[in-house]
C-alpha cells in the first residue's frame, strides 16, 4: 500500500493546501479522515496533503436559513452536535450516527464521505435529500455547486487538481418539512445493504417537494425521480405512499453482493421506502416542526 509515497504536507490554510496540490511535483492527493481503503491502496501516489488539521475546514455553523459544515468536520461531531436540529439537522445526525463506529466516525470527515464515494456511503443520500450545495475552493477562487453534480461526475473528475471540497451547505428547512433516514445492515457497524434518506416539504396540505435518495442497494447514490414526481402536488394517503414505494423500487438498478440477494433487497427496500415516507410525513405534520 502507498508504495511510492515519499512525503506528507501539513498545510494550515485552504490556500496552502491548494498550493501543495497544484505544485505539479509528482502524483499528489488530499487525505482527510484517511479511512478510504482505496486511497490507502493507491500505489501511484507520491505525496499526500493532509487537510485534517486545517481549522478553517472544521465547523458546524448556522445562519438564518442554512447549516454550513466544514469539509473536515468529523462525522462524529455531526452525530453529537447540539446545534443540529429540525428536519435537516436531524437527518444529518441520524445518517452520521449510522456510519461505522465511534472509532471510525472520529476519523471520517463530512467531505471525505462525499469525495471518496462508495456504495455504502451514508451521508451523500442525506445531502441529496436536503438539496445540499458544495463549496469547492481552488485557493481563493470558489464555486458553489449542487451536491448532485459532484456525485454524478464523481469528485476526482469534477474537481481540478488544485481544488478541494471546503464546505457543505444545507438548507435548514422548518415546520412543514419532515425527514427520515433508514439503513439496513447486517450489524450495527457493517456496511449498508440499503441506505435511504427521505424529505417531504408540504405546502397547504399537499406535497410541495419530495426527495427519495438511496445508496448501497445501487452502485452509486441516486434519487427515485419518478416516485418523487408521483408525490409532488398531491395530498398524501397510505395508498399513494405505497404506490410511490413500488415506483421507487422499480426505478432502481439493484446491486447484489455477498451480503444479500437482489430479491431480498427489492422486498425490503419497498417496505423501507413506505415506512420512511410515512415517518417523514408525520414529522412534517408535527406541531412546531420536527425537533
Amino acid at each position, binding site marked *: *500500500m*502507498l*508504495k511510492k*509515497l*515519499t*512525503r*506528507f504536507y*501539513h498545510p494550515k490554510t485552504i490556500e496552502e493546501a491548494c498550493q501543495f496540490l497544484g505544485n505539479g511535483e509528482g502524483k499528489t492527493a488530499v*487525505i482527510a479522515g*484517511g*479511512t478510504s*481503503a482505496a486511497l*490507502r491502496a493507491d500505489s501511484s501516489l507520491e505525496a*499526500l496533503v*493532509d487537510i*485534517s*488539521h486545517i481549522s478553517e475546514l472544521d465547523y458546524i455553523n448556522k445562519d438564518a436559513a442554512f447549516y454550513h459544515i466544514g469539509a473536515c468536520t*468529523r462525522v*462524529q461531531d455531526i452525530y453529537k452536535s447540539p446545534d443540529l436540529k429540525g428536519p435537516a439537522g436531524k437527518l444529518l445526525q441520524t445518517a452520521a450516527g449510522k456510519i*461505522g*463506529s*465511534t*472509532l*471510525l466516525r*472520529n*476519523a471520517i470527515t463530512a467531505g471525505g464521505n462525499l469525495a471518496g464515494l462508495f456504495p455504502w456511503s451514508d451521508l451523500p443520500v442525506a445531502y441529496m435529500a436536503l438539496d445540499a450545495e458544495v463549496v469547492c475552493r481552488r485557493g481563493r477562487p470558489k464555486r458553489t455547486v449542487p451536491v448532485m453534480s459532484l456525485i454524478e461526475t464523481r469528485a476526482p473528475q469534477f474537481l481540478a487538481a488544485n481544488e478541494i471540497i471546503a464546505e457543505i451547505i444545507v438548507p435548514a428547512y422548518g415546520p412543514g418539512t419532515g425527514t427520515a433516514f433508514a439503513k439496513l445492515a447486517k450489524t*450495527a*457497524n457493517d456496511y449498508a445493504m440499503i441506505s435511504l434518506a427521505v424529505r417531504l416539504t408540504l405546502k397547504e396540505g399537499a406535497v410541495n417537494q419530495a426527495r427519495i435518495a438511496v445508496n448501497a442497494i445501487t452502485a452509486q447514490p441516486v434519487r427515485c425521480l419518478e416516485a418523487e414526481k408521483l408525490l409532488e402536488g398531491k395530498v398524501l394517503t397510505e395508498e399513494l405512499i405505497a404506490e410511490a414505494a413500488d415506483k421507487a423500487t422499480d426505478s432502481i438498478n439493484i446491486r447484489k453482493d455477498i451480503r444479500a440477494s437482489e430479491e431480498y433487497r427489492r422486498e425490503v427496500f419497498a417496505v423501507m421506502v413506505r415506512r420512511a415516507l410515512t415517518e417523514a410525513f408525520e414529522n412534517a405534520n408535527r406541531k412546531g416542526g420536527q425537533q
Partner: protein
Amino acid sequence: MKLNTRINGRDLCLEIKPNATLLETLRQAGFKSVKYGCGEGMCGACAVLIDGKPRTSCITLAGTVEGTEIITVEGMGNPDKPHALQQAFVDAGATQCGYCNPGSLIAAKALLDSNPNPTAEDVKDALDGNLCRCSGYVKRVEAVLSAAGSVTKQKKSTRGKK
C-alpha cells in the same frame, strides 16, 4: 521520514517509512499495548487516543498524526498504579483473553473524559467500535459504569481536601 508527536506525555521524534501505519509505528516504538486485530478498522483492538479522540491506529497513516498528542494504555496506568477503568475491568471480570481490552479501555477513557456520568446507553454507544469475542459485552458496561462512579468520587474527595 521524521514524525514528531507527543506519546503518553513525552515528546518523541520517530524515524518512519512514509507509508507506515500508526499501529506499526507505535508497536515498533515499544507501545505493545496497541494490538493488531483485523487491520481494517473494523474491530477496535488497535484504538489509541489522537488529540483526545479514540481512533483505529491500524488504518491511520502515521504521517497524519504529525504534531498531535497520542495516548495508549501505557499512558493510562500500570499494575502498581492502575487507572480506575483498568481496576474496574479487573474487578468486574470484563476480560477473558484480554486482546480487546486495550482498545476498549481507550474508548472508555475518551467517554469518561468528556462525560463523567454516562448512562449504560452512552457506554454502549462509545464502545460500539470495540469487538469482544470471548468475555462479551455486559461486564465491560458494568466496569465502565462503576469506574465512572469511582472517578467522580475521587474528584469530589480531592475537591473536598482543598
